[in-house]
């Protein structure tokens, strides 16, 4: 049995190693632990969010740190930033590890909606419900934009814009800013839950609401009856959608060319949005306007297809428009990350944590850990409005759905340019 025990011993040792070194230390500091995708195709999420989180924490500490329950100022400490690879099982393992083996007061992760959906499911649904054996640990996600995730658990928090109001406002603004745009069509990637549902249930519905005329395949019910409309849209427009890993977009682009709409919606992540927009360019589909999915308002789109994306308008939760935002942007860039709608949320989360901690009395001792987490959760839940990088982050206390400010950006000459700020 020597070999097996050796192997088991070695793996236990490695697992022990993988727990942050200072995880259980008595030091007087406010500990947080983050995670995100640091491997796999979505690696940029984790890398950027880690850079943003660490930079923001450094800023907070440089400004004196966080005021704890005993009145003293303590530094905030990121005790680790783990790789969840945007996979459910791994994120759950990290969540449980954070909750049970570290004295982090809050877990910060992750960016991927599908992963949040699983992770939140492991948490206790209603706080104080003793019959529920779910994990009791506050989680603060940077993004996880899929609608409806807030209701899964009382312990889950997200820092995301509300996509419904975001696109509602967007089309209202387009109506006035581009009076000659009257018709629209579009496509999406159907294997990505967030892209497709946002497209059918939100973007297309809001465009119709603001009087744009759908010129895609006939969709009788598209309009106020959201659910019915969604179903019809899915059925009718199937052949102008694609999958994330596709390589051939000729059919979709030609269908959209034929529809000759003023506005084309590209509701897709950069991987396939770029392929599709390039195909549109090749087939010389030149709509007056393109509208994109908020997840595409990132550096990846510029890496992938700067020229084909020229002119696309996307609402985003971050742009360097205020002095704070500009400052944060330059700090994070120096730390080797990009600040975009995902990572900016990680930056803001650091400040949200500081704000919440200072609203209550966190002792930050190992003995008070569970109590601290509970207090922290309640404090975080009680925040309904907090200053973020480009405006106020708000949260609806009853539904738990967050809503953060957003701006509209457009690719102009190969760079993201803010074209409208609905708050100003």
């Amino acid at each position: 049995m020597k070999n097996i025990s050796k192997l088991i011993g070695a793996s236990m040792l490695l697992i022990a190693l993988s727990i942050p070194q200072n995880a259980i230390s008595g030091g007087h500091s406010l500990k947080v632990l983050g995670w995100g995708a640091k491997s796999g195709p979505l690696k940029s999420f984790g890398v950027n969010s880690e850079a943003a989180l660490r930079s923001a924490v450094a800023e907070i500490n440089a400004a004196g740190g966080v005021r704890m329950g005993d009145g003293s100022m303590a530094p905030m400490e990121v005790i680790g930033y783990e790789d969840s690879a945007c996979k459910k099982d791994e994120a759950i393992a990290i969540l449980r590890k954070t909750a049970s083996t570290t004295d982090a007061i809050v877990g910060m992760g992750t960016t991927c909606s599908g992963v949040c959906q699983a992770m939140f499911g492991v948490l206790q649904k209603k706080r104080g419900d003793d019959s529920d054996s779910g994990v009791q640990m506050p989680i603060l996600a940077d993004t996880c934009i899929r609608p409806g995730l807030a209701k899964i658990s009382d312990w889950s928090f997200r820092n995301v814009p509300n996509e419904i109001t975001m696109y509602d406002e967007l089309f209202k603004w387009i109506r006035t800013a581009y009076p000659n745009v009257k018709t629209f069509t579009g496509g999406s990637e159907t294997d990505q839950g967030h892209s497709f549902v946002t497209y059918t249930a939100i973007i297309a519905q809001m465009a119709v609401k603001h009087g744009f005329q759908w010129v895609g395949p006939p969709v009788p019910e598209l309009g106020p009856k959201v659910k019915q409309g969604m179903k019809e849209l899915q059925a009718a427009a199937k052949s102008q959608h694609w999958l994330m890993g596709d390589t051939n977009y000729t059919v979709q682009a030609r269908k959209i060319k034929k529809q000759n709409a003023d506005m084309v919606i590209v509701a897709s992540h950069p991987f396939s949005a770029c392929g599709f927009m390039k195909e549109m360019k090749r087939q010389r589909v030149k709509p007056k306007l393109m509208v994109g999915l908020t997840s595409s308002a990132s550096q990846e789109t510029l890496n992938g297809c700067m020229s084909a994306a020229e002119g696309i308008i996307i609402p985003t939760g971050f742009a360097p428009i205020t002095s704070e935002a500009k400052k944060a942007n330059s700090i994070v860039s120096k730390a080797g990350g990009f600040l975009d709608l995902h990572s900016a949320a990680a930056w803001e989360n650091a400040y949200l944590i500081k704000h919440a901690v200072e609203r209550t009395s966190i002792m930050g001792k190992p003995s008070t850990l569970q109590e601290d987490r509970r207090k922290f959760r309640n404090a975080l839940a009680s925040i309904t409005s907090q200053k973020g990088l480009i405006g106020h982050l708000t949260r609806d206390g009853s539904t738990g759905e967050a809503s953060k400010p957003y701006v509209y950006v457009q690719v102009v000459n190969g760079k993201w340019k803010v074209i409208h700020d609905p708050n100003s």
Partner: protein
Amino acid sequence: MDFYLNLINTIGIHTMLGLSAYLLLQTGQLSLAQAGFFAVGSYTAAILTVIFQWNIIPSVLVAMLVSGFLAFLVGFPALRVKGLMLVVATIAFSEFVRMFFYNLKWRVTRNGEEIGPDGTMGFAEIRYFSDNGWSNFEVTLFLWSFVILIMGVIWWSDQSRTGAVLRAVGEDELAASSVGINLTVVKVSAMTAGGFIAGISGGLYAHQVTSLDHHSFTVLLGTFAIAYPILGGLSNVFGTLVAVIFIQGLLVEGLRFLGDWRMILFGLLIVLAMNFKPLGLFDKQTMDLIKKAIRV
């Protein structure tokens, strides 16, 4: 503690997944369909506990029967072909299953909330364990009782004539059929047994992660299912367990502190392991070492 229990649960689920491929691999057939059976099992069990509010035990058993039956049906046409053709056919099968679940919508309203599988949005809030106040330790006991039962049955059949027949088919099909072994029956039975096991493991997995969507059941999962027995060696069931501990415990969880280098090392270590131990980590050489160690 919670974390270690979670890791032990993950190891248990993956061990069952690996064992579901073990029997068929013994007959020399390389099938990547396990991801499909696993997906069917997990969706079935989750639908039963969430939509029909069944107890978990009958749900897992029904999941087992459903995926076993599916494996039985798939086995007949699929096992007509072998080698690379079987690999591709089974990849295609599990992609088909994945696409089925990615189109599956079955929403019902309960207590004012909509629940059930929701197409590409996945199937969230499969919260049987926490809703019924099961502690993670109880979950571990529950899950591992299945693992131990399955390992025991396979260990036993390995020692009996069944094991010898499966291996005989794997070594020389022509010789096996000329001593009277019905190849189709043996292969389809192995596939069906694999389907049963994959169904159980999928049903438990659904409740462990609480949320399912088609991203979990890709070809990659099917590859892992065969990777465990191949990496562990086909000489006995403990090989699979050791391989799961190696991959899930060591490479996935143990190396997490390496951050972005972890996955690179992951691929590299598999290549190295196969080069140095082509018959699996738990091959005859290792067995002899262990036997020697026990004797000393």
